[in-house]
C-alpha cells in the first residue's frame, strides 16, 4: 500500500443538492509537492444557498440520527468512500498532512469509536435536572427541558490532525444540521466523514462540506446559527466578541512535576505527551515545569527523542511529522528565533531533516528555560517541541495558566485543588496520564454541547 500513487482524487463540494465539482478547483499537494487531490472551492453564493437549504431541512428523530451516526462510523472505518479504501485514505492523509500513517490509522479508528458513542458523549453534558422532551411526565409539574440553541452549525475545521473531526459530529447527534469548511491542509478526513454520514442516511441538506477560499470562509458562519472555528491566537481574537462562535485556539498543554516525585518513573508519559500522535496536536505537551533542576530530565528526554528515526510519513514506523521543505524551513527559522537565549538540548541547530523529495521531517526540539515565566513556554509549534522550565512554589499558578490540558505529577492535593479551580486550565490530569488522553463522555475544552444546548423551563396543565 505504500506504492506511490500518481492519480489525483477529486474532492467535490458536498452541497445541499449533492456533490458539486466547481470550476474553481484547488490543487492539494502532498509534502513533496505532488498533486494528490483537486478540491472544489465554492463561491459565497453556493454557501448561502446551501446554508438556506440547511435551515429549511428537517431534523431526523433522535434515535434515527444516532443510528445513522453509528452506521457512518462503520463506513468511515471500513468502506471505500469517494474511491478510497481505508488504507488509501490513510495513505493520502499521511502524504498530504505529513502525519505519520500509523497515527492516521489509529485516529481513524478513534474517530469511528467516538462516533459510535456520540450519543453517550453528549448525554454527559445534559444538566441532571433537565429532561429531553417537552412531554416528559416531569414537565407536568415544571421541569427544565434540554433544547438546541439553534439548528444550523458551521465548522471551520482544523488541518493539523484528523483527530478534531471526531468532535463536530456530536452536533448531528444533538439534531443540528452541520456544514464543514475543510482545511486545505487536509481535506480528506472531513470529505470522508461527510460522505460516510450521507451514505448512512443523513440528507444532503443535513450535513455538508463547503470548501471555500479564505475570503469566502465567513459565509458559512454568517449562514449558521452557531459556529466552531479552529485557529491560532488571531482567530481567537477575531471571534472573541461573537457569542455565536466557539473558538478552539492554541492548546499550550503542560506537564508539572513537583519535587516529591521521581521524573524517571514518568519518562514514558513525558516522551509520549510531547511526541505522541506526531506531536502536532493541541493536546501535545508544549511546556514542562519541573520543581528542581530540569537538566537531568532534559538530557533524558533529548536522548529518547533523538533516537526516533526520520522517515517519510507513509512509512509504518514513522513517528515525527513531515512538511514541505519550505514550510519546514520557516518553522525551523521561527524555532531558532524563539529559542534564542535558551539552553538547547535537542534541535538547537535546527530540527529539520530533509528526505530528499522536497519534504523534510520535523524532528523534536527540547529547550531549557531559565525561569518559570519565560515567554517561550507559550510557543506552541506543530511538531514535537517542548520547553522545559524550572518551577517553584513561589512561582505558583501563573506559569501553569492557559492550558488545554495540565498533567500534574504530584502528591500535593492542595496544589491539585488549585489547578482544578483555575479557570484558564481546561483539563487536569493527576499523575501518570498523557496530556493527549481523551475519552468519550469527557469534555475536551468543555463539552461542545454546553455551547450548542440550553435549558428551557416547561410547565403544563
Amino acid at each position, binding site marked *: 500500500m505504500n506504492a506511490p500513487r500518481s492519480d489525483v482524487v477529486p474532492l467535490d463540494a458536498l452541497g445541499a*443538492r449533492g456533490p458539486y465539482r*466547481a*470550476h*474553481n478547483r*484547488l490543487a492539494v499537494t502532498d509534502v513533496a509537492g505532488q498533486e494528490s487531490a483537486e478540491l472544489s*472551492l*465554492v*463561491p*459565497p*453564493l*453556493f454557501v*448561502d*444557498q446551501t446554508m*438556506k437549504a440547511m435551515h429549511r431541512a428537517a431534523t431526523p428523530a433522535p434515535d434515527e440520527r444516532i443510528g445513522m451516526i453509528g452506521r457512518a462510523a462503520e463506513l468511515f472505518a471500513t468502506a471505500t468512500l469517494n474511491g478510497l479504501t481505508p488504507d488509501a485514505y490513510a495513505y493520502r492523509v499521511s502524504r498530504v498532512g505529513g502525519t505519520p500513517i500509523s497515527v492516521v490509522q489509529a485516529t481513524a479508528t478513534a474517530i469511528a469509536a467516538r462516533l459510535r458513542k456520540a450519543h453517550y458523549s453528549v448525554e454527559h453534558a445534559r444538566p441532571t435536572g433537565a429532561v429531553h422532551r417537552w412531554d416528559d411526565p416531569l414537565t407536568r409539574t415544571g421541569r427544565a427541558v434540554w433544547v438546541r440553541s439553534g439548528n444550523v452549525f458551521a465548522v471551520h475545521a*482544523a*488541518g*493539523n*490532525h484528523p483527530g478534531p473531526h471526531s468532535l463536530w459530529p456530536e452536533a448531528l447527534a444533538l439534531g443540528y444540521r452541520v456544514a464543514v469548511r475543510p*482545511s*486545505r491542509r487536509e481535506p480528506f478526513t472531513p470529505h470522508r466523514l461527510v460522505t460516510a454520514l450521507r451514505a448512512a442516511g443523513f440528507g444532503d441538506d443535513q450535513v455538508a462540506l463547503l470548501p471555500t*477560499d*479564505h*475570503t469566502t470562509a465567513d459565509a458559512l458562519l454568517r449562514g449558521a446559527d452557531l459556529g466552531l472555528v*479552529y*485557529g*491560532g*491566537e*488571531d*482567530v481567537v481574537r477575531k471571534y472573541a466578541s461573537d457569542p455565536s462562535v466557539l473558538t*478552539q*485556539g*492554541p*492548546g499550550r498543554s503542560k506537564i508539572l512535576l513537583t519535587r516529591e516525585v521521581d521524573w524517571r518513573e514518568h519518562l514514558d508519559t513525558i516522551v509520549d505527551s510531547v511526541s505522541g500522535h506526531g506531536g*502536532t*496536536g*493541541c493536546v*501535545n505537551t508544549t511546556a514542562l515545569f519541573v520543581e528542581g533542576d530540569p537538566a537531568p530530565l532534559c538530557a533524558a528526554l533529548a536522548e529518547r527523542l533523538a533516537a526516533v528515526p526520520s522517515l517519510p510519513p507513509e512509512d509504518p514506523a514513522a513517528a515525527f511529522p513531515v512538511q514541505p521543505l519550505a*514550510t519546514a524551513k*520557516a*518553522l525551523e527559522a*521561527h524555532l531558532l528565533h524563539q529559542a534564542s537565549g535558551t539552553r538547547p538540548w535537542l534541535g538547537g541547530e535546527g530540527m529539520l531533516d530533509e528526505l530528499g523529495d522536497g519534504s523534510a521531517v520535523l524532528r523534536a526540539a527540547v529547550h531549557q528555560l531559565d525561569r518559570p515565566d519565560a515567554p517561550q513556554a507559550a*510557543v*506552541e*509549534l*506543530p511538531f514535537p517541541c517542548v520547553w522545559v522550565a524550572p518551577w517553584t512554589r513561589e512561582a505558583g499558578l501563573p506559569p501553569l495558566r492557559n492550558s488545554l490540558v495540565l498533567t500534574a505529577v504530584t502528591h500535593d492535593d492542595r496544589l491539585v485543588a488549585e489547578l482544578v479551580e483555575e479557570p484558564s486550565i481546561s483539563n487536569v490530569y493527576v499523575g501518570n496520564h498523557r496530556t493527549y488522553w481523551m475519552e468519550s463522555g469527557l469534555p475536551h475544552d468543555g463539552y461542545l454541547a454546553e455551547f450548542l444546548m440550553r435549558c428551557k423551563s416547561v410547565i403544563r396543565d
Partner: protein
Amino acid sequence: MSRAATEVLDLPLDIPPEPDELIRAAMAWHFGPTGSPFWLERAKSLPFDPLTDIRTHDDLTLFPNVAAELRDVRTQDLIPRGYGQTPDVVGVFESGGTTGAPKRVVLLRDWLERMLHWSNLNLDAHGFERGVDWLGLVPSGPHIVGEYFRRSAATHGRHGFTLDLDPRWVKKLIAAGRRADADAYAEHLVDQAAFVLRTQDIGVLTITPPLLERIARRDDLTELVNEKVRAIRWGGTQLDPDSRYLYKTEIFPDVVLCGNYGSTMILGFAGERPGLPDDAGCVFDPYSPYVTFSVVNPETLRPVGYGDRGRVLVHHVSKSFFLPNNLERDTATRIEPLAGHTGDAVADIAAVTTFENENVIEGVY
C-alpha cells in the same frame, strides 16, 4: 484635411468601419487641427508623427500609455476642437478611484449614441425584452455606468429606477477593516431596491454581482425577481463561473443573465458573447474596432497565447476620444475574437484566489 479623410469616424451606426481605415481617420482627426488641446500638446513629445507613422491598428502600440495623465488634465482640453464651440457634452465622468486620485473623461453625445446602439443590439441578442422598466443598483454620481444605465433604460426599456451608490466609500470602509459598516451600506442599498421591486413592474435589473448575491440571500427578494424580472444585466465586478451556473440553473432559472465588462477609460463596456453554455465562464467582446482589447504579458506588453492569462490592454479610438495602450489592472484569459473583430475577446477576468495565510506558522491548526 479633407472631409473624406475623417468621414469614416461618422459612419452610420450600423456600418462598422474597416479597422485600419478607422485608425488613419482617427489620426487625421485627433492630430490635425480638429484634435484636442491635450493630444496636440502631447504629440509634440512623441518620438513619431501620428499623422504619418500610425497607419494600422497594430501601430497603436507605438503610443505611450497616457492614462495616468487623465488624473490632472483639464477636462475641457480633452474635447477635440473639431466639435466646435458648443460640443454636445453628456457629462464628465471619473474612474473608480481605487488607486488614488480618479482619472477623468468627457462623454460626448455622438459616442454615447453609438455605444448605446451597439449595446442595445447585444441586449436584443441575449433576449432582453424591449420597453420594460429597469432598476439599477450601479454606481451613480461621477461613474459613467450610472449614465449608461439611465440611457440604456430610456432607449432599450421604458423607465429607469435608480438609487445612490458610492463605491469609493465602500472601498474605503473595506480598506479600513470596517467590514460590518460595508455590509450595512450594502444592505441599505438592497433595502432601497426592495421598495422598487415590490411596487414597480421591473423587467430588467442592472446590478453588481456582490449585490445580486445579497438579493439571492433573501428569499422574498429572490421570489420577487423570479416573478417580475425577465433579465439581469450584471457588471462592475466579476461573476465567477460557479455562481453564474447557480444563478442560471437554480436561483433565477427563467431569467436572462448577461454580463458587462466595463471601464471608464473605454467610455463604455464590452458585452457578454451571446449563446455561451450555462456551465462556462463569460466571454466578453468589446465594441470593435472602436474599442479593442489585447491580453498581454505585463512586462513585455506582447500578447499571450489564446487560452493563456495576461493583463488586459485596451484601446479606445473614436471621434470623441482617443486613448491607446491603456493597461488595465485586470488579468484575463485571451480568447479568439468573433469573426471580423479586431483584437481579443477576454474571459475569466481578475479573480485572484487566496486560501489561508501561509505566513502564520505559530500554533497547530
